[in-house]
């Protein structure tokens, strides 16, 4: 782990941090880049870029196969990343750390392997109104295939889960509760401890979609007690193409493989194959080797800054952004839960989000505009789309000032 003493919370120096991200020094349309789209995908620190390059330049070979020095070395680095991730999320064993392409694949793995084999017609899966499509569609596909029942827990106008309504949905047929830890659209942080406790009380398993939370909140899967936890590397300042599934060992042990192929077998004959041990049983084919090692470097980088310090800085930026945007003429923030992080979605009553995004792009401001892969939530909040500004560990006040300034251009056209 990196030296945390260099970055004590009081000394969080965002300008120094920004210096670690080469892309932040570029311009967009001739203006300094104000990158406010980290919730879609975060930028990469030099440490990650250098690590990936180092793998390819010095130590690349396939893993788990080669009987030569560089293959053994890269296998050690790849498997070492599993330990880095185990430590980062507090898992009991690296057997519980399964590499995937991204969180979407992780959810699909659970739907296919756990869902198809342990859920029966009439069994219930509970999700919430604020889920990303990645935590809706796989369950709909399972519903259509197996005849399970998909139940959706409602949220308030502020974007908070209505706990009493959630609890009302739980019953003897509830086999799985699959919820986001943090809303990708509104930033709401869900009370997952409470959710897990109540779900377990009726004997249901719990999957937490940690895509958004893992970059802001320290995670301890054992303390949470969740059964599955998923996230993507690219939102955590790591490469794209690498994601993670955490599953409790006894569950993963009981689950059949998701995909068949090389690397996931113990033995193969034309009559019968037997499976590799955990976690390799779920990792068919050559994995994203450099990307996994790059994710390890990203986690080392985040640990070096400290998630507590990062979280505090991001909370300061969120407060500043909320304050600046709230007073803007005709602007309405979508998602006003007291417990939220790093995301501010909004609409202007005189301009469509796409027009806003196009205009502020010309001022160097990168945001997401649209439905954010959460169309049911857009319907629930009664908006066709929103503009989403999301905050990362490198976001500074100048980024937010650039956003607010550029909204002035929008107002000039449309106001």
């Amino acid at each position, binding site marked *: 782990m990196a030296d945390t003493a260099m970055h004590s919370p009081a000394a969080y120096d965002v300008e120094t941090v920004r210096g670690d991200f080469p892309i932040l020094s570029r311009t967009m*349309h001739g203006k300094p880049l104000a990158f406010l789209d980290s919730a879609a995908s975060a930028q990469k620190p030099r440490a990650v870029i250098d690590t990936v390059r180092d793998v390819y330049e010095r130590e690349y070979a396939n893993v788990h196969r080669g009987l030569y020095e560089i293959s053994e070395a890269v296998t050690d680095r790849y498997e070492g990343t599993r330990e880095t991730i185990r430590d980062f999320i507090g898992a009991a064993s690296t057997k519980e750390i399964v590499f995937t392409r991204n969180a979407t694949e992780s959810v699909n793995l659970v739907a296919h392997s756990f869902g198809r084999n342990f859920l029966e017609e009439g069994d219930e899966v509970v999700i919430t109104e604020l889920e990303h499509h990645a935590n809706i569609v796989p369950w709909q596909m399972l519903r259509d295939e197996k005849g399970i029942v998909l139940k959706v827990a409602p949220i308030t106008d502020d974007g908070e889960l209505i706990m009493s309504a959630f609890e009302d949905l739980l019953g003897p047929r509830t086999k799985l509760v699959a919820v986001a830890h943090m809303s990708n659209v509104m930033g709401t942080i869900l009370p997952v401890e409470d959710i897990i406790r109540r779900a377990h009380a009726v004997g249901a398993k719990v999957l937490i979609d940690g895509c958004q939370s893992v970059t802001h909140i320290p995670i301890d899967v054992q303390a949470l007690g969740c059964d599955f936890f998923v996230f993507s590397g690219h939102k955590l300042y790591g490469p794209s193409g690498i994601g993670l599934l955490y599953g409790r060992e006894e569950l993963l042990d009981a689950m059949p493989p998701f995909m068949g192929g090389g690397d996931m077998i113990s033995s193969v004959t034309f009559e019968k194959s037997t499976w590799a041990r955990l976690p390799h049983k779920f990792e068919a084919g050559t994995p994203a080797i450099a990307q996994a090692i790059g994710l390890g470097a990203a986690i080392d980088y985040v640990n070096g800054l400290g998630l507590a310090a990062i979280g505090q800085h991001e909370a300061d930026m969120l407060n500043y952004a909320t304050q600046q945007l709230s007073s803007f003429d005709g602007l309405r923030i979508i998602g006003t839960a007291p417990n939220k992080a790093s995301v501010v979605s909004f609409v202007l009553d005189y301009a*469509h989000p796409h027009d806003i995004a*196009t205009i502020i792009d*010309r001022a160097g401001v990168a945001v997401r505009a649209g439905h954010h892969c959460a*169309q049911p939530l857009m319907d629930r909040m009664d908006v066709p789309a929103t503009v989403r500004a999301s905050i990362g560990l490198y976001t500074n006040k100048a980024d937010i000032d650039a956003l607010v300034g550029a909204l002035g251009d929008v107002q000039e056209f449309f106001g």
Partner: protein
Amino acid sequence: MSDDLRELYQEVILDHGKHPRNFHACEDATNEARGNNPLCGDQLVIYLKMGEDGKVADASFVGKGCAISMASASMMTDLLKGRTAEEAQAMFDAFHKMCTGEEEDVDLGEEAEKLRVLSGVREFPTRVKCATLPWHTMVAALEGQDEISTE
């Protein structure tokens, strides 16, 4: 502010965007199609009433979208009236070439010349579909399809 933005958001477009013409459902439409842009969530429905003479007797739309798509639908429905299906298709072809920049000085025809205010989308590749969605939907309606999706 950049010139290409001023080019994109001309007064005419802002006006059509804010006060779209023909913005209503049509109960006795002969042709009707829904258009979706799954990338951004824009949705609209185009209604056409074809007369016995084979010409568009009435055209209207409803939907939610950005200023570009609303303005494009508004101007398109205005221009469709009195045209045959072939003429509408030809107008679409010319408009499409203009938006994608495929043809620099495409001939839109005298009446449709006003569509040239939308040519600014050429400088904004991600917004071309906003301008063309109503047109793709109109063509789908003429061809008897219920729904189209732009990717």
